[in-house]
């Protein structure tokens, strides 16, 4: 029980280092257990260092850097234990266009056999989709769905 958690935790840590570096184009990140003596109940620390910058408190990261770090950690966990499908509702809102591209490139590189449902306002995310559904409220307060061809 304890051994399984520690093994899985270190796998998530491995994944996190990789995914972070992939999304940030470099840099270092890791997750750590706050108390090695109390592995089954202690908290989990996160350390993230974008490329070229010094390691600082997560609070000092920018809105976009925090967002990308959170996405990296989510993907690290999913890599260990994939879920049948993944629903992400505007998770890339804080990312600039260049980082949206890194986010969607990562999804496309790692999406064989995976299923992603992304609610989005961002062009980059729309362009990376295999399918597009548009939600409209032609009649006020009443939602309807249109299947949209890509390139429309």
């Amino acid at each position, binding site marked *: 029980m304890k051994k399984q958690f520690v093994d899985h935790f270190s796998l998530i840590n491995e994944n996190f280092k990789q995914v972070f570096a992939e999304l940030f184009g470099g840099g270092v990140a890791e997750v750590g257990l706050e108390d090695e003596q109390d592995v089954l109940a202690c908290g989990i620390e996160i350390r993230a260092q974008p490329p070229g910058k010094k390691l600082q408190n997560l609070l000092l990261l920018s809105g976009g850097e925090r967002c990308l770090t959170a996405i990296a950690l989510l993907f690290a966990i999913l890599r260990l234990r994939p879920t049948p499908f993944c629903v992400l509702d505007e998770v890339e809102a804080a990312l600039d266009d260049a980082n949206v591209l890194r986010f969607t490139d990562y999804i496309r590189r790692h999406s064989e056999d995976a299923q992603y449902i*992304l609610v989005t306002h961002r062009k980059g995310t729309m362009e990376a*989709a295999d399918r597009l559904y548009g939600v409209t409220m032609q009649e006020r307060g009443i*939602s309807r769905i249109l299947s949209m061809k890509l390139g429309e």
Partner: protein
Amino acid sequence: MHLKSLEIQGFKSFPERTFIEFHKGVTAIIGPNGSGKSNITDAIRWVLGEQSVKTLRGSRMEDVIFTGTQSRRAMGFAEVTMVIDNSDGKLPLDYTEVQVTRRLYRSGESEYLLNKTTCRLRDITTLFMDTGLGRDGYSIVGQGRVDDILSHRSEDRRRVFEEAS
């Protein structure tokens, strides 16, 4: 195992029976502010057994039933049906296709169906336990919620790691 389709009727801003087919790969849901995109996310959570009205952005469970507009009357019930492809047998049921339905009436009465057979809410939540789609799952990230995984409340974060282990 993957999501095949979702059917929504009377749920939040979807009074009309609405059918959405899902495929493998990446599906993007787009539209103007307030059009109903996050309501689809809520419908997915709800049919999987979500019981927290806070997570569903309401103050009472009744809030998920279409409440009417200035030109259309409220509905008496909300219903969401999800069809899942189970050909890899990940779900512990002897079916290659699993259909889950949740219905809530304004009276407060609820109905739950698994492959068209009445069941209890517990049967649905138990079915999805250990898939990452459950209560402590990490597969659904709501609007404005992605930062939570970094937040100080590391007990929540802890739970996500445990669910994945």
